């Protein structure tokens, strides 16, 4: 009897484990395809502009390719959305086509393992050469550009500049001079919006073209763990400029609780004069203030030398196909459509253009905003721009936005902040197993 009781416990334990493992395991999802009309799915982030552009592209694509319907799915933006992409890729449950970041962040989703290479597809020849490196991993190319290139720069209110008789600054000192004059006129010179934390990073990220001008080897040395923000005289300037502007009291009074949206309102209404931000803010402003859009201009974050005034540019996100797609042919057709003039035109029709396209033959509409026109000369001349650091090095720490909030709020010094960021990126480098970091 005693033995049987023991056996029963053993059987119970065994049964529990088996059932538990069965419960823990995941089951894959199925995809639907019916008859002669095929439906493919396309996962994009849920930003208003992205969804509008994607739906218009999908509509025009179906018109050009009868029999293939595209269903646009959405996911959250930012880190949560990235996690959804990673999870769906690794469970083989990804949509047939999806949008995701380019540059260093692309490495996080293991392109070799998860994505369909398109190096030999004919439509890749439509994509500009400057874009290809940011969707390349190893020797293969994986994506086509969706949306337009942008800049990390200063948007400024031209009416305020005109009223005070200011001219666009070419150096940091001119920028500070302008800002002091604006302050004397009772207008907030520099808008910061730390309630939306990512916006705090622009002084550092947008300054990168100046860093690479002063030290062209910085990206390579940085990736190899040889150069640091805190110790490189050019790189630390972004942090120092942020600190200097904060100490001079040039920010809007309630910068700590201002949101990205409120910051745009302030800029458009002339309560603030200059806002260092990514130029895609123009997309949003176009929706909320269509008639005031051309009050805004754009200039690069200035460095020390007026003759080397360069713009830091961001490549658009990419559209990729997962290896798990069961509708490979149709998915490639959609990719080809996005990388064509018709694809650009569909996006322009839906949301306008906030920067140049990275697809050959694509034209910007004649009513393109003034701030975008300010950007074009820099984009056209390769010597006058540099991609942001995240496109040149996979080393990017997650805590930069908190650090820049602290530096900008006077909680931490610039030097300290730069050193803390150097610590922060170690984790990313180790996670990616980069040589020289372990």
């Amino acid at each position, binding site marked *: 009897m005693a033995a049987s009781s023991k056996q029963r416990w053993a059987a*119970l334990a065994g049964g529990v484990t088996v*059932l538990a493992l069965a*419960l823990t395991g995941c089951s894959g999802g199925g995809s639907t395809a019916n008859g002669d009309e095929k439906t493919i799915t396309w996962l994009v982030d849920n930003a208003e502009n992205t969804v509008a552009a994607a739906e218009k592209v999908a509509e025009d694509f179906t018109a050009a390719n009868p029999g293939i319907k595209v269903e646009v799915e959405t996911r959250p933006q930012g*880190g949560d959305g990235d996690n959804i992409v990673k999870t769906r890729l690794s469970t083989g449950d990804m949509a047939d086509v999806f949008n995701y970041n380019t540059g260093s962040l692309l490495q996080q989703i293991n392109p070799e393992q998860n994505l369909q290479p398109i190096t030999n597809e004919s439509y890749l020849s439509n994509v500009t050469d400057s874009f290809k490196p940011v969707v390349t991993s190893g020797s293969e190319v994986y994506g086509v550009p969706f949306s337009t290139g942008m800049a990390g720069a200063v948007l400024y209110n031209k009416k305020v500049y005109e009223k005070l008789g200011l001219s666009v600054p070419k150096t940091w000192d001119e920028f500070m001079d302008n800002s002091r004059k604006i302050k004397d006129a009772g207008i907030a010179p520099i808008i910061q919006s*730390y309630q939306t*934390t990512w916006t705090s990073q622009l002084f550092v990220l947008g300054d990168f073209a100046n860093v690479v001008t002063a030290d062209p080897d910085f990206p390579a040395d940085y990736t190899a763990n040889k150069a640091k923000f805190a110790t490189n005289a050019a790189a630390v300037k972004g942090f120092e400029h942020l600190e200097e502007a904060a100490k001079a009291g040039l920010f809007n009074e309630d910068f700590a609780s201002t949101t990205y949206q409120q910051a745009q309102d302030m800029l458009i209404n002339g309560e603030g004069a200059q806002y260092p931000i990514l130029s895609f803010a123009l997309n949003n402003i176009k929706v909320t203030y269509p008639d005031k859009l051309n009050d805004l201009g754009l200039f690069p974050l200035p460095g020390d030398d007026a003759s080397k005034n360069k713009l830091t540019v961001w490549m658009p996100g990419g559209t990729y196909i997962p290896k798990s797609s069961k509708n490979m042919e149709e998915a490639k057709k959609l990719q080809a459509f996005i990388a064509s003039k018709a694809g650009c035109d569909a996006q322009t029709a839906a949301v306008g253009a906030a920067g140049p396209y990275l697809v050959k033959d694509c034209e910007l509409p004649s009513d393109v905003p003034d701030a975008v026109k300010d950007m074009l000369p820099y984009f056209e001349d390769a010597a006058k721009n540099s991609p942001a650091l995240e496109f040149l090095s996979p080393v990017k*720490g997650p805590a930069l936005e908190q650090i820049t909030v602290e530096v900008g*709020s006077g909680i931490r010094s610039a030097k300290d902040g730069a050193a803390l960021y150097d610590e922060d990126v170690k984790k990313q480098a180790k996670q990616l197993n980069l040589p020289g970091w372990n």
Partner: protein
Amino acid sequence: MTLNTAPTATAVRQVPQAAQPKRRKGKSAYPYWFYLPAAVIYTALFLVPTVVSFFFSLTRWNLNEFTFIGLDNFVQFFQEPALIRGLTNTFIYGIVTSVLKVVLGMLLAVLLTSQIIARGYLRSVMFFPVLLSSIGVGIVFTALMDPRNGMINEGLAAIGIQGPAWLTDPAWALLSVALVDVWKGVGLATVIYIAGIVSIPQEYFEAAKMDGASSFKSFFNITLPLARPATATVIILSLIGGLRSFDLIWAMTKGGPGFTSDVIASVIYKQYQAGFYGLSTAGNVVLFLIVTAIVLPLSMFLNRKEVEQ
């Protein structure tokens, strides 16, 4: 399912066993199979993940593969610049919220067990915030606590007080979230105290009254000591809740401004969000050990005192 026959078989065998008094000791009246559903769920959702997470805390992993790296994650985790801040904040948060919940919960419970009008209604109102979603509460209070346009500071301005920048002043951010947590959680503490106070036999109060005890005296000499089991429950629940608090902090400040209101859970979440899965698993193991190390002895201490009475 083959399981269907099993319970009957076991149940049948149980009968002769029951006839033997010696064997009966320690035997449950129910066959073991009855435990199975609960055991499966518990194993799948708690035991397996716990054991597996101990293993994965020793690796650097992503969703496809892992490399064993020994204790590197723990070394890295303890070098995390925000960690000391996070640990201190976690303790401050845990202690502030539990103390306030104990004190306010007790006072409210005394009020709500006394003979006041609309008692039932007041009890429901008091409990209402507990039912709300933390994220919703967080968003609402973020709007209320806006330094310029928020209702709280506008109200204070009306009576001539310049309110602080609740969520954006580094000195106030953590405290502000803790206060909202107390607002949201004090209802539960109150309900536990009400149950505790109601279960105290009325005779004690009557006897005390006969002896001429003031209501202060009966509170300190009868209500407070005899509601000790309730106090123990409230302290343990709110301390555990406070130590692993995350949702409200994330909804209101995301650990900001900068790192000033980071707690361990938000540090870990940010690591996870950045894709440092091994590191964040190690952080969770550390959090698990810290919570256990604090709550286990505390719970034993509080419960022992209870038995001695």
